[in-house]
């Protein structure tokens, strides 16, 4: 499980960030700000369009294995759009377009021979709005991914309990697993969606403001889960909560659109972004001066 030594990761991180600071100031390439891992997820010059609207421009980021990256930035700057590029959900919206490369463990997920379904199994997603399946019970929702992708599991009940515990929902639903998912509160539904995403054991988990509908207690539980999961999983989380980004993420990328398409202004170690950012706009944003 813990294939990579955390020490090794830290070393790469330090050198990776130090050597590329200059490049940010010239605004040429933000890709190397994140350390180069042997495996993980990487985007190279990614662009996204909705019809004529250029939503994202030239985003190059690297998400090393077993790390948590926070995506921050004001509303409408393209964070959700960027997430959808990473598991090929972008193409479901009619009229959209994409340019660039997204590499999962070095393999381009947009290559013609790649099966998008297989990619989505490896790159799971928790959406901004809770979307449990209303026709299924709570238990069936958690296990839905297994049934949809026809995955066999030895012990479904263990997996069910494990996922619900990690999503911080087990205590509330353990006596009503057969009840309809629609009978849960909004926050409970969101935690159910997190449990559902965990059940298929993805390599990468994309979370789009997973805590925006949650109370502080559940938020804390989900944050603990994120930290715990990141030992074996690459996690990318969009959040508007700066404290949350600081608490859970190892790296941060700051998106900004300034009227035109969204781009990455700055990316790097979370501690650097929050305490000693290079770009003044980043400093303004993380300190709550705009956005």
């Amino acid at each position, binding site marked *: 499980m813990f294939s990579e030594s955390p020490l090794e990761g830290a070393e790469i991180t330090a050198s990776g960030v130090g050597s590329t600071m200059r490049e940010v100031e010239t605004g040429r390439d933000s890709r190397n700000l994140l350390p180069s891992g042997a495996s993980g997820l990487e985007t190279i010059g990614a662009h996204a369009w909705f019809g004529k609207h250029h939503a994202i421009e030239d985003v190059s980021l690297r998400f090393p294995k077993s790390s948590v990256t926070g995506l921050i930035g004001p509303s409408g700057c393209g964070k959700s759009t960027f997430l959808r590029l990473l598991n090929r959900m972008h193409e479901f919206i009619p009229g959209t377009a994409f340019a660039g490369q997204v590499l999962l463990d070095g393999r381009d997920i947009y290559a013609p021979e790649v099966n998008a379904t297989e990619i989505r*199994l490896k790159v799971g997603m928790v959406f901004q709005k809770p979307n*449990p399946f*209303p*026709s299924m019970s709570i238990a069936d929702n958690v296990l839905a991914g297994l049934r*949809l*992708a026809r995955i066999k599991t030895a012990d479904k009940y263990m997996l069910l309990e494990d996922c619900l515990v990690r999503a911080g929902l087990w205590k509330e639903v353990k006596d009503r697993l057969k009840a309809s998912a629609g009978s849960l509160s909004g926050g409970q539904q969101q935690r159910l969606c997190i449990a*559902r995403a965990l059940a298929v054991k993805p390599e990468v988990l994309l979370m789009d403001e997973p805590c925006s509908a949650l109370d502080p207690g559940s938020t804390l539980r989900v944050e603990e889960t994120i930290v715990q999961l990141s030992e074996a999983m690459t996690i990318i989380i969009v959040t508007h909560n700066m404290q949350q980004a600081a608490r859970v993420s190892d790296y941060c990328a700051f998106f900004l659109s300034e009227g035109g398409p969204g781009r990455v202004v700055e990316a790097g170690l979370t501690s650097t972004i929050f305490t000693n950012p290079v770009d003044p706009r980043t400093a303004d944003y993380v300190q709550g001066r705009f956005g």
Partner: protein
Amino acid sequence: MTAATNQTTVVQPLRPWRPTFSQQFARFVTVVLVVAAAAVVVLVSPLAGLAGIALVAIPLQMAVSVARSSRHGSVAARNDVATSLIWSAFLVLLVPWMSIIFTVVRRGYQAISVNFFTDDMRITAPDADLASGGIAHAIVGTLIMVAIASIVSVPLGILSGIYITEIRGRFTKVVRFIVQAMSGVPSIVAGLFIYSTLVLYNKSYSGLAGALALAVLMVPTVARTSEEVLKLVPEDLRFAGYALGSSQASNVFRIVLPTVRSGLVTSGILGVARVAGETAPLLMTAQVFLATKGNPLDGPLGSLPVVIFSFFQNGADNAVTRAWGASMVLMILITFLFALARAVSADRRRSRR
């Protein structure tokens, strides 16, 4: 200053939003008074009959509700006008509907007896005594033909709904256009189509031909309604499925269809409702047959609409009574089928693992 929660009173659950008994009683008395006043007006004026009473009572009731609610402001008054309008519309619609049921029962109940359900018209003349003969052949024939038509057209209709809403392939517009054009086909043309193909080719009328004529009429109804139902599935749910690594097929069959199960059952019910009383296409395809039989491939097959038609054509008192009785059976049968479809689909959901 002690906390109020220290009190030991047991709190009863209440429903303060419900009108109290005296309010309901007052409302009832007002309606009775309004109708009585309208009756008086009808007596002393050239207006006449039920329609006259309705014509006076409806505006009068609205005026009374406005007068009563205007002390709560104009919003309350407008709300009350709308409420009375909707109730009046409901009552106006209820009258013809009830009168149809009432007429059918009043004129047909004499035909109802055990032999009416167990016997057929093989050796009984249509105008013979009601103690012999029955419509078992027609009940069985209708059930067989409606069942075959449903088996053919419900899957076809739902599949074309899926093609239009889920697959959104290159022919979406064409399929939708054809479905729309088909729903305008007069039923006699559907009968003629099956007659000129299947019946002439086999040189024989048959229950199957009748069922297929019904299916031609049923497919567009099912396709249209299931398309509308499938459109109601939120896009979020499809995305949730895909994000879990689902293929499009799994997504459609395990998420989208189960989400709208009851809507799809409704589309099937509407399809059955569309065809169960069709007479003309059956006359041209399944024709008339007076003995009970279960084989839709073996020559003509009787059906409820066709026996109703031929009993009426006979014109004798007993035959006409039989026609009303058969109409009553047809109505009860359809209602029963609908209730059955609802019960089956609801049951499935509850006992699902």
